[in-house]
């Protein structure tokens, strides 16, 4: 990560293309992430958005929080709609029906709309090499419908469809590695980001938008409502996710891995988990299992990046 001076926030564009007045929960990390991404994307974009938290909070008829062109259709087809927009724009410009202009197609979806129901459309769009940026806003569950588990829910986390109980530890599977799946499609740019590191996030979104071809940025979006933490801790919890190695920040540029931020020693995962009610029920054994796995995965990532 580049060094930055303390006063750089004031150099960021003041324009809010994701306008205040949206109905996101108090302290929503995803709304913050969307807001920051919009600052990096500028005006010349068209957004295709999946059904989910951000879509619902930003578009209750007849209101919209969007100051850029935006379309929502269904839950699982964001990448397909984005493909159609990209193709349509290309032909309209080629045939002279609209003026030549650099318009970036940006797909926005949650973890459900990306790694579960939306995986097929995303894989197809990446394979076909459409020129678009796909942003996955990962709050680690189907939050908008009431905190049900997704394949992005971390191991051991309690959700309404993977509740902790007498015979259950919560989520029974490990978080699906979506950035690796994106990288396996050999697209030019894949990155992970977190709004707790706002300049890193904005730089990566801008970099993804500048790529010619598919780009994928996976953005951890802390959710106080679903993760059961106080509303003022969204940014802190996101930072801890990175510092404990549970959500490492890295890029994959043309297949080459690069860590954005490395730590001499990772903080213990309990530092991250103890702030969140969704992990409250975990036993020492499970926590230790998680700790080992996180360390193993982080070591593997470092090796890929060396």
């Amino acid at each position, binding site marked *: 990560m580049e060094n930055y001076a303390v006063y750089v926030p004031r150099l960021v564009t003041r324009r809010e293309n994701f306008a205040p007045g949206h109905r996101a929960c108090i302290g929503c990390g995803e709304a913050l992430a969307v807001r920051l991404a919009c600052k990096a994307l500028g005006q010349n974009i*068209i957004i295709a*958005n999946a059904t989910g938290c951000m879509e619902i909070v930003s578009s209750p*008829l007849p209101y919209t929080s969007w100051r850029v062109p935006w379309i*929502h259709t*269904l839950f699982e087809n964001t990448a397909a709609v984005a*493909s159609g927009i990209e*193709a349509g724009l290309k032909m309209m410009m080629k045939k002279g029906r609209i003026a030549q*202009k650099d318009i970036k197609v940006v797909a926005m979806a949650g973890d459900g709309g990306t790694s579960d129901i939306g995986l097929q459309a995303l894989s*197809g769009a990446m394979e076909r090499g459409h020129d678009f940026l796909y942003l996955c806003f990962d709050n680690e569950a189907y939050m908008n419908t009431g905190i049900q588990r997704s394949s992005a829910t971390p191991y051991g986390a309690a959700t309404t469809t993977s509740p902790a109980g007498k015979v259950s530890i919560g989520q029974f599977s490990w978080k699906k590695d979506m950035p690796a799946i994106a990288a396996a499609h050999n697209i030019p740019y894949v990155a992970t980001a977190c709004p707790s590191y706002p300049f890193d996030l904005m730089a990566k979104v801008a970099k993804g938008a500048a790529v010619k071809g598919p780009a994928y940025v996976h953005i951890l979006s802390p959710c106080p409502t679903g993760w059961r933490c106080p509303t003022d801790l969204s940014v802190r919890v996101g930072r801890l996710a990175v510092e404990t190695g549970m959500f490492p920040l890295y890029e994959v540029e043309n297949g080459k891995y690069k860590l954005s931020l490395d730590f001499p020693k990772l903080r213990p995962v309990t530092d991250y988990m103890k702030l969140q009610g969704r992990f409250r029920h975990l036993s020492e054994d499970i926590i230790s299992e998680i700790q080992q796995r996180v360390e193993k995965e982080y070591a593997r990532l470092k090796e890929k990046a060396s």
Partner: protein
Amino acid sequence: MAKRVGIEVSLAIGEVVKLANADVVAAYPITPQTHIVEHLAELVANGELDAQYIPVESEHSAMSACLGSSAVGARTFTATAGQGLELMHEVLYVASAMRLPMVMAVANRALSAPLSVWGDQSDAMAVRDTGWIQLFVENGQETVDNVLCAFRISEDPRVLLPVMVHLDGFYISHVIEPVVFPEQSQVDQFLPPFKYPVPLHPDKPVTMGAFAMPVIYSEAKKAQEVHLEAAKGVILECWKEFGKLFGRNYSPVERYHSDDARVLLLTVGGFSETAMTAVDKMRGEGKGVGLVRLRLWRPFPFAELRQAVKNAETLVVLDRAISFGGPGGPICSEVKAALYGEDKRPRVVGFVGGLGGRDITPAGFEEIINKGIEISQKGSDQEFEIYGVRE
């Protein structure tokens, strides 16, 4: 001067899309539509059709890509059949409710299970309520003409609704028929360029697909229904203009010796032409029968249907799809509903036949008509009968 060629109808559809200068084709192959999309791919690959061909990974994505393409104002085409039409089912509702113009050719195919690639109308009947304008054609020339009209109707600023053109899978899609293509100059005159009034573009940002709370959803649906019904006027206008330019006339309900007939058969789709042969034979024997065919399916041509059948005593409706546990033939149930309020109406008898591509010969149609007359006189303990099932 326009010349007449022998061409497989699927390929002819590709040629019309080329004449219409479509911008984007997003499609997924499925029997019996494959020849349509293969030919389009060839036309694009050779530079004959200047379009983006998106080989999507499923029909759901095909229709979704069409949504995106239409939303930026590009002329959009796709094609599908049977299972494919069902896979894109939820997206169809979105296309019409969001008023995104596009044209889709559907090579009507039976629905699984059991798997059948052969033609019947179950796929079309399953999408009755999706809000699309829907037309049925009976041969190659009609297919070519109506795909062209479909672009014009769909993109008309007073309509801006997606249009489906239903053709028989295999029986129309795969046969070589004599077709007269319009000249490019005639098409350019008939089909104006597509200009969507509120496209997605940074110069004028719009939000498409906002969600509706209960307090406003009904208003959104009413607006949609009003515009679908009003589209009928534009469709009639388009066919009239087409008739003047090209000499071939189309109407919402096509009639064949029906004005003086006591007994009418109603069919939809390709096997109507076989039914005509049966009608001719029976009329030759002095029987007062006639044939009525629906061409415009949505918006439903209530007035034209009522007019066409008002003097008949018996109306036999042959469906090529079955609605299980209910009225049997979907078209028959809609016809009955359309006639229910009329003071003077024929007795309607429903048959379901030709499922899964089973052929019905002229003798078969004769049998159906005679059976229909018998049932209308004596009644039946069944709501409908499936014709030709081996007991």
